[in-house]
């Protein structure tokens, strides 16, 4: 049996950002996406959720951002406690940016308009019907500049390349001025070189802004190179939780099937 490493954070100097206890998610129709997950996300650390597609990575991420209602279990966020009221939920989501696999942008709007979406939660519903103030435009432009797309601010998003769109998605998350950054398979639909540059960008931003980061990935090599901590999921269950150097062949066999593991191990475990 592979020992599941837990209770990872108490030794961590910065403390716990999100604490998950006994989390289960069952979809209508009886499919169990997550089963009894207990873990803690440490503040200021880059955590990677590793698993095959369908392992429950996206569901777990959506639970962490409270986009998905768990069937059982609790999620407590540092500084927010149990999030019960709608206003607390808004406050929490405002400081938790999310980057999606397929960027989730509005194609016919400009990059700037899409990034400004990240500023919405800072305004009342009534105020946000009107164009947002210049201060927000300044923040949005600063975020576009950080991802290297200031010159494309006024271009329609559907005219941008895949990598550029993902950069706009990152800029939108940054415009929220987040303390936590979630990314659901941020590079799964990009070519390897672009994927590398996006991962690099995300890590640089995470370090500069001291963000707590949770990524979901299915590539072992990216997970090992970018994740300070790796959480392995298979069939909705936690099978590994620890530093990537503690990932053994047995763990990988659990996370992936045998064949994928053979190729992945060489890449991941070679220095």
């Amino acid at each position, binding site marked *: 049996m592979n020992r599941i490493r837990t209770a990872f954070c108490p030794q961590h100097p910065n403390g716990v950002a999100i604490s998950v206890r006994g989390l289960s998610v069952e979809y209508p129709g009886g499919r169990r996406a997550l089963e009894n997950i207990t873990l803690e996300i440490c503040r200021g650390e880059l955590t990677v959720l590793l698993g095959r597609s369908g392992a429950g990575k996206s569901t777990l991420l959506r639970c962490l*951002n409270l*986009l998905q209602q768990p069937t059982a279990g609790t999620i407590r966020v540092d500084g927010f406690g149990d999030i019960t009221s709608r206003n607390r*939920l*808004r*406050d*929490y*989501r*405002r400081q*938790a*940016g*999310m980057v*999606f696999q*397929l960027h*989730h*942008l*509005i194609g*016919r*709007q400009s990059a700037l*308009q899409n990034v400004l*979406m*990240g500023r*919405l*939660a800072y305004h009342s*519903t009534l105020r*946000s*019907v009107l164009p947002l103030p210049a201060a927000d435009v300044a923040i949005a432009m600063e975020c576009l500049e950080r991802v290297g797309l200031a010159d494309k601010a006024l271009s329609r998003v559907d005219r941008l390349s895949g990598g550029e769109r993902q950069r706009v998605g990152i800029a*939108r*998350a940054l415009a*929220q001025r987040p303390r936590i950054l979630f990314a659901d398979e941020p590079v799964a639909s990009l070519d390897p070189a672009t994927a590398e540059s996006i991962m690099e960008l995300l890590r640089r931003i995470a370090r500069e802004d001291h963000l707590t980061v949770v990524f979901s990935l299915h590539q072992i090599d990216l997970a090992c190179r970018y994740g300070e901590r790796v959480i392995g999921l298979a069939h909705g269950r936690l099978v590994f939780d620890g530093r990537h150097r503690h990932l053994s062949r047995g763990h990988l066999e659990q996370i992936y099937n045998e064949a994928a593991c053979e190729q992945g191990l060489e890449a991941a475990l070679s220095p």
Partner: protein
Amino acid sequence: MNAGISGGEGAAAVSGLDSLNAVLVARKRQLRRGALQTAFVLFLVVASLGHADFFNPQRYAEGAHGIFQIIVREGLPPDFSRWASWGRPLLDTLAMSIGGTALSVLFSFLLAFLAAGNTSPHPVVYAAARLFLNVMRAIPELILGILFLAAVGLGILPGVLALGFHSIGMVGKFFAEAIEHVDPAPVEAVRACGGSPLQVLWHGVLPQVFPQMADVSFYRWEYNFRASTVMGMVGCGGIGFQLISSLNLMDYRQVTALLLLILLCVTVVDALSAGIRRRFK
């Protein structure tokens, strides 16, 4: 045949043949079904036309003469002598079509979010909104015009109300369908940034459906301009009222002139709205 085929490959070829046969059988069934459907539609068309006495040549022989008499003998050349008194009714008709369309777009916009499955707050609200749209579509605008004429009196106001309410039926349905077809991804993104439910609608749904909404609205304006000439015939004023007056007086040369004028206006409105719709793509 390839003589060098090995045992394993032979088995694969046989199973490939099996799947080819299966596809061919399925295709044959599909073609037969298509032929049956076409035959049924054809039967429906021919039966309907027969029911309407469409295939009776005698009726055309008599009718052609009457039509020729009215159009050529009595309708030509068009008589534009009263042109100066047509300007005001024409403006009335234009105002009626714009007012009616604006009214329907405003109400449809609010109703559409209730009548779209993905944004409606409750199934009962959804069903009620859909029912209202169906009722509005089912009552012809002429009937609505007569009702409003009795309610609010003469003038173009009953026309505006009739066109407005009847249009909600179609405009609201199209708006709701546009909302149902939005890409859910950006909508979820607004929720994930902490947007309130109304911000999700305004900034996640609306930007996606705006082009379709503008398109439907301008198309409906075209339609309402044509409809508003008919509205004049039941007493709602405008150019249609002039048309029905000339028809009643059997002044067919003036009728021809008015029809030409309406044709010109419809063409201008069509071109204008097509031009505007193109810009919203």
